[in-house]
């Protein structure tokens, strides 16, 4: 892993889920990309094993996001994959685009919640090939 400056990135990966946490991640990524002129990769993945996945963004939501970022002059790549493991999809995207920083939204979790469900954000933070910026939605 070559050491790059995550505060002056050339490529930013944002883990996007269609909720406040994912939106917070994308908004921060957007701000960083605007300031540094970095390329932005937005990953919106789903396991695709249930009929409805609330965290998988609707088509029109993705379109409006793409439009917004494009008008701001950000070079953006939005990936919408159906994969066995969402965290792995984010990490894979970071590896492929040799990202300098990954941005994830994190949330409070109860002890029981931690016991029952694995966290995508935690997997990303621990296994990422580059620094990870954890952001929270505005209160």
């Amino acid at each position, binding site marked *: 892993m070559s050491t790059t400056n995550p505060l002056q990135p050339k490529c930013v990966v944002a883990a996007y889920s269609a909720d406040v946490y994912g939106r917070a991640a994308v908004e921060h990524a957007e701000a960083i990309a605007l300031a540094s002129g970095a390329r932005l990769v937005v990953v919106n993945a*789903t*396991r*695709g*094993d*249930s*009929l*409805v*996945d*609330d965290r*998988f963004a*609707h*088509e029109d939501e993705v379109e409006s996001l793409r439009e917004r970022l494009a008008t701001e002059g950000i070079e953006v790549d939005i990936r919408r994959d*159906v*994969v*066995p493991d969402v965290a792995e999809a984010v990490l894979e995207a970071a590896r492929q685009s040799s990202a300098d920083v990954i941005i994830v939204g994190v949330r409070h979790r109860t002890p029981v919640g931690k016991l029952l469900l694995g966290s995508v954000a935690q997997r990303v933070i621990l296994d990422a090939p580059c620094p990870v910026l954890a952001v929270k939605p505005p209160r």
Partner: protein
Amino acid sequence: MDLLLEGFQQALTPTNLLFACLGVLLGTAVGVLPGIGPAMALALLLPVTYSVGADSAIIMFAGVYYGGMYGGSTTSILLNTPGESSSVVTAIEGNKMAKRGRAAQALATAAIGSFIAGTIGTVLLWILVPRVSDVVVELGAPSYFALMLLAFLAVTTVLGASKLRGFISLFLGLAIGLVGTSTGQARLTFGEAKLADGIDIVVVAVAIFAIGEALWVAAHLRRKPLEIIPVGQPWMGRQDWKRSWKPWLRGTAYGFPFGALPAGGAEMPTFLSYVTEKKLTRHPEEFGKGAIEGVAGPEAANNASAAGTMLPLLTLGLPTTATAAIMLYAIQSYGIQPGPLLLDNEPGLVWALLASLLIANTLLLVINLPLAPLWAKLLRIPRPQLYAGILFFATLGAYSVNFQAFDLALLLAFGVLGFAMRRFGIPVLPLIVAVILGPEMERKLTEALALSGGEVSTLWGEPVAVVVYVVIALMLAAVAINGLRPPAPAQPEIADDEKELVER
């Protein structure tokens, strides 16, 4: 009338009320989930009949059947994917309404329309079942033989796109029904002693519906999630009521008779209702963009047809849908002979069932109107967990039939058959009807020939039988003429993916 009140008395006992509740909750759940229909739910529930009284079990089964009709509309409207085949038409206008922000009204008109149609259908049953029973009790074995033949041909040729596939399914079912030594001779047992008693229908039904479906889902596990439309409490404005009540009544008028016919089912009346509403509407500009009439009519039609299905089931012992076929088997498994004598021999059971239909309908309205958003949450269940549960209950059910591991091998074999049928687009209904009615038909044939001393002409010796044969001839002629006509230009297959989800 007294009998009806007694029926209510029996249906309203705490135990039976509990089973009715259980049935409608379960029915709505399986209706909401695409791929899992009331037929699969009943197949998985068949082992319940070993430990529960006949009236409770039948009441629960009827609840599941009605509940499935309600639940299907929720998925159709919110997801544009019909929960089961009778809601395919609802999706056309229902989802468009939801996209325009009128999901609440669409759900409301579907639920209230279903309630009204179901209630009218139930009242019609109260009137018709005793009368029809009095008439059909006169029918002899030859007429029955003819009627079953008609049922076979009807479920095979009327429904589904391909007659050939229908017949493949029918003959597969008949062949499975032949296994055993019921005639004194060993047929298709391959020298295997465990096959001598025949193949239990529970094993076949569970395998075809549950295992086949689970294998199919496993083969198509990951697909892009569908976009669900968020919805609040269903409600309707005055304008919606005004535009809904006529389609409700017209839908009922289509649904009930079609349900009562052999090969009725809900697909035809819902489609006819949709076409009619499209023609009669005062808002033609809204059709195709979310017209409330296009939801109200078909939804009423599918519930009315569910009620109509009960008529041949209770009076003739003839099922017209897969779900009804499994209900028929459940009745048989209590040692009760379905058919014209059912009402005379088991008036308590029949009237309790007829009364419970009204109760189930009311319960469904109560749980569906306020809880629609909650039901939609079921769609988030990940498939691996859901189908693991289904496989567990399927295996348990098949094993509990005889407590022998051989049945599990059969379960797997028929499960693979069910998977293959889905893969090659072979309809399941003819197979299930043939497995259940096939042995019955053979019995009637033997009975008729025994009475006549082997004279074959007895088969057309009854007027009803002759009429039925004429109907069969007309049907076959229609099929033949249709086959000779040049094929219609292929329609664009837009809904291929959806069809895959529904026609199983």
